[in-house]
């Protein structure tokens, strides 16, 4: 049996195991080990596996994951979401669809301190969906805006997915964070425009319902209530941008800052803080276990030579750079219908990254593209995790309405991808300015 055949069997076996609900880490690790052993023998496979756990779990770069996760957990526990939503409502007061736009704005701001999409969707659905339903918004618009807004959590830095990508693709976390910022802002605007058009379409351009805002709800007062979120974002991202801190240092300062601000402002108690530490450890252990297993799988993929064969095959059929990127996008969108985001990234990056690099694309640019493709998977059926998160919190909206509501918002990330392909500087300009 050739190494290519072993590689293809391994990949197919991996997808089957994952779909048979074997934990992603276990499937990656077992397929990686057995595949490596089939190519190079048991002794070498054992030797390869022996170094991986300690080597990969004790890298300095990996430390950004627990520290930024802690910052996000504290932000979620401190109930920042309602203040952010209120500020958004005041900012967009009077506009048609203002509650949906405020929800997207609040999600973007929340994403600036929390790197998880599902956490952002869960938090925002508790705050903004009841308000929208009270104001007689169509339920599908309420669900769609929150589902789409939630995806901003993994694009706007700090992003958990970008941190994992940085580790497996050996790229700079700082450059990736900076690269994702402008696309994050553009996507926020595109989602807001979608919400505006969708509101007009669903309500036949009805006027915005009278809200509960009074004359005392001024822009200055509302933003004064979220100064700590702005401060945290400015210090962490600003510190990285100006070269004051490494990403790990920024994450440590952000995490401590979030804890202290939460305690001083009485947003949470010591016991809440302890809970955040426990929650972070649980999440980080799951993630690091997957990273370790994906390293085993990557060694196997390298041994199979699948990437170089794929590059040869793609160049052989004369597919140009744009053709390759379109094919990769289609592959990820299809896979996103069945696979969870991090798992999908860890399975595919060892194969797709060399292909993308061979066509002259930048690995930082590809990292941001990958996150946007994962975002699409988060809001399209049947595996859209954000849709399930909303369904779990807002029982009054049927899953069918949630699916229907999220569909128009899929246009925004696809449009952003087209913009990124046409103008790569959207992604690459800011990292080039890093101090």
């Amino acid at each position, binding site marked *: 049996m050739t190494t290519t055949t072993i590689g293809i069997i391994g990949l197919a076996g991996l997808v089957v195991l994952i779909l048979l609900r074997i934990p992603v880490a*276990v499937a990656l690790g077992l397929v990686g080990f057995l595949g490596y052993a089939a190519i190079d023998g048991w002794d070498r496979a054992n030797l390869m596996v022996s170094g991986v756990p300690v080597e990969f779990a004790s*890298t300095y770069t990996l430390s950004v994951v627990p520290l930024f996760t802690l910052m996000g957990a504290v932000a979620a526990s401190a109930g920042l979401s309602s203040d952010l939503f209120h500020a958004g409502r005041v900012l967009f007061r009077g506009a048609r669809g203002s509650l949906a736009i405020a929800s997207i704005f609040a999600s973007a701001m929340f994403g600036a301190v929390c790197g998880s999409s599902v956490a952002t969707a869960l938090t925002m659905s508790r705050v903004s969906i009841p308000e929208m339903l009270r104001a007689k918004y169509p339920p599908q618009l309420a669900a769609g805006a929150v589902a789409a807004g939630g995806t901003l959590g993994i694009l706007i830095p700090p992003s958990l997915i970008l941190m994992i990508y940085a580790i497996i693709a050996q790229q700079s976390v700082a450059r990736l964070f900076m690269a994702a910022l402008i696309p994050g802002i553009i996507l926020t605007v595109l989602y807001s425009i979608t919400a505006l058009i969708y509101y007009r379409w669903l309500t036949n351009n009805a006027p915005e319902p009278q809200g509960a805002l009074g004359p005392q709800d001024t822009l200055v007062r509302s933003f004064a209530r979220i100064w700590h979120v702005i401060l945290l974002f400015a210090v962490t991202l600003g510190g990285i941008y100006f070269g004051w801190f490494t990403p790990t240092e920024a994450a440590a300062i952000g995490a401590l800052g979030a804890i202290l601000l939460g305690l001083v402002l009485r947003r949470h108690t010591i016991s809440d803080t*302890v809970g955040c530490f426990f929650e972070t450890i649980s999440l980080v252990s799951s993630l690091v276990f997957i990273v370790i297993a994906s390293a085993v799988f990557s060694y196997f993929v390298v041994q199979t030579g699948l990437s170089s064969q794929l590059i040869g095959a793609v160049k052989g059929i004369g597919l140009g750079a744009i053709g390759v990127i379109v094919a990769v996008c289609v592959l990820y969108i299809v896979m996103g219908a069945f696979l969870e985001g991090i798992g999908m990234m860890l399975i595919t990056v060892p194969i797709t990254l060399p292909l993308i690099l061979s066509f002259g694309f930048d690995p930082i640019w590809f990292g941001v593209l990958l996150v946007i493709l994962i975002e699409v998977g988060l809001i399209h059926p049947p595996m859209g995790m954000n849709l399930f998160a909303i369904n779990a919190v807002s029982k009054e909206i049927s899953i069918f309405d949630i699916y229907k509501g999220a569909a128009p918002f899929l246009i925004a990330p696809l449009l952003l991808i087209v913009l990124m392909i046409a103008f790569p500087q959207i992604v690459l300009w800011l990292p080039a300015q890093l101090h």
Partner: protein
Amino acid sequence: MTLETALARTARACTALGAVALVVMMLSTDYDVVARALFSKPLNGAVDIVEMMVLCSAFLGLPEICLRDEQIRVDVIDSFLPPRALAALKTLALVATIVFMALLAANVTRPMIDSWRFGDIKPDTGFPTYPLFALTLFSLIAAMATTAVVLVRSLRTKPTANS
């Protein structure tokens, strides 16, 4: 106290230790930044401390995750399968988890012994590296034990439409 309760308490204690490691990681990094900026005296070995603590916080959470059966997985197939088939798949997943962890645990032993024999140390702090391998081994064994508890529990439970 039953074996299951003892394992649950051990798993909780491991998570608590992981949380302590996270506190140490955060505070040592913060101290390093402040001391470097204000007094030009960075914390010696800050990178070593962070690297060791990230390993502790990553592995010490594993036993409790396995006990709660909270590993990241794709469960899209759940709604299409009858209870018995689903229960069989859950059992298969637990067995596969134990096999993979056993594989990792068995292979961590050799570098741990080598590290102890040759006196490997972290470059800045001079801290020996074999305890890191030992902690990894301990966490993997504890995680295997807690996974075994879940496996036994699931084998005793009769599959129902809601399980």
